[in-house]
């Protein structure tokens, strides 16, 4: 049996918890489900710790477990609890809003991202926030690289359109499908 003291997954997970929760929030938009998703991800990672190759990125490996769990098991639960669709009202900026209210621009960014479709949100988080390459993000979400590129382009067009609308500048109809 694996000696848990030398299990890099078990020793490495605790410091990833906040980032895992952030990804879970981006995926689920729901604090309760995000907590469940983090716990399920930890358990699955521990169960598969023998598959983890030491020296590779534990964070990316764990993100891909979370993405897979979400896609295959927990998203259905989320939609069921949400009564058929994922509501965008429960937000990334809910409880902690006042903490970061000092920077309205940053809060706005979260609000804008949360209005994007889930597929675009997860691509944005992995590439623009977590700093994964396109190839790494594609592997994590189990989609082709081209899909990551389309999602990022669509997200940027959507956000650009929002800004131009606010500025009263020229509007452009943009498709933001996933």
């Amino acid at each position, binding site marked *: *049996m694996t000696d848990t003291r030398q299990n890099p997954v078990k020793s490495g997970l605790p410091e990833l918890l906040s980032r*895992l*929760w952030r990804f879970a929030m981006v995926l689920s938009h729901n604090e309760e489900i995000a907590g469940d998703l983090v716990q399920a991800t930890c358990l699955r990672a521990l169960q598969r710790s023998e598959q983890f190759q030491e020296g590779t990125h534990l964070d990316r490996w764990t993100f891909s477990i979370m993405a897979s769990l979400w896609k295959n098991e927990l998203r259905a639960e989320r939609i069921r609890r949400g009564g058929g669709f994922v509501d965008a009202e429960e937000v990334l900026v809910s409880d902690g809003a006042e903490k*970061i209210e000092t920077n309205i*621009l940053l809060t706005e960014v979260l609000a804008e991202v949360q209005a994007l479709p889930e597929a675009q949100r997860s691509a944005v988080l992995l590439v623009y926030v977590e700093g994964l390459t396109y190839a790494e993000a594609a592997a994590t979400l189990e989609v082709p690289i081209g899909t990551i590129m389309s999602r990022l382009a669509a997200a940027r067009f959507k956000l*650009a359109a929002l800004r131009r609308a606010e500025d009263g500048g020229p509007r452009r109809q943009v498709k933001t499908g996933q």
Partner: protein
Amino acid sequence: MTSEVNSRPVTDEMLVAYVDGELTQNERTSLEAALEGNQELRARLALLQDGDRPWAEAFEGLLDQAPVAELEAAFAAAAHTHAEQIQANQARADHARADQARAELVQADPTETTDQVAAKDDAARSWWRPAMAACIAVTLMVGFAAGYGTNQVQKPDIMAAVQTEAEIWRQAVADYQALYTRETLSTAQTDPIAQSAGLLRVGEALGLALPDAVSQVAGLDYKRAQILKFGEQPLAQLAYLYQDDIPIAFCIVRLDEADQAATNEVRSGLNIVHWAKDGFSLMVVGDLPVEELNAFARELEGKMI
């Protein structure tokens, strides 16, 4: 290689990859060349750049909101569950063998003391070893004697003379089955839920699912499932009673033999039907006429698929 990019339309995907620094140097150079003098392309690029945001800083704030204590509790719960699963997996394999062997010996003689049971338990685990050694020794001696007797130069075919592992297994099961009487099975649990749980447990130890259907064979009264041991391999034994009188066993072990269709043989005075499938060796054994035993075996074989 500017022509390659120039020869096909520049997509939004290429533009976003350009903005994100994901293009190779060559792709980058060609795309920049394409942007020269292409107003529409530059407008699209500008729009994509308008969609840029201070992502990392914005999401840093979200990181600060993480419910750290709850997440640590969630991790601890996951680690606890995982540790329990590991223990349960080990205990299941260990206990299934020890407890089932002991339970069987207790059933045979309820007056025995624990020490006697434990001693028998050890004996039961190792009884097949001398039997196997004896089989090999005898067959080797016979093989060599045949070689010497005929006074031929060619060596005796030792491998052909030695019994295969599967033959030794079937002999062991037949020897054991010959000791069974109707009373051996008289105390078995008949509660369907307990029987179903027993099949599940034994199937897990064996590494092969045992469907409930194997306990429902017309003409056979299903009694119980238990795990025995053949060498280091878990051996599943399902016990039935025929006409409330004759013990019948359906036994399975993983020997990794090649697939084999059902075949009849007689060992220790009992009829046997045996076959192999997907690495598992299976046999039905009992003191029944071949035709009847074959019919039950066919039914069980069908239920195992």
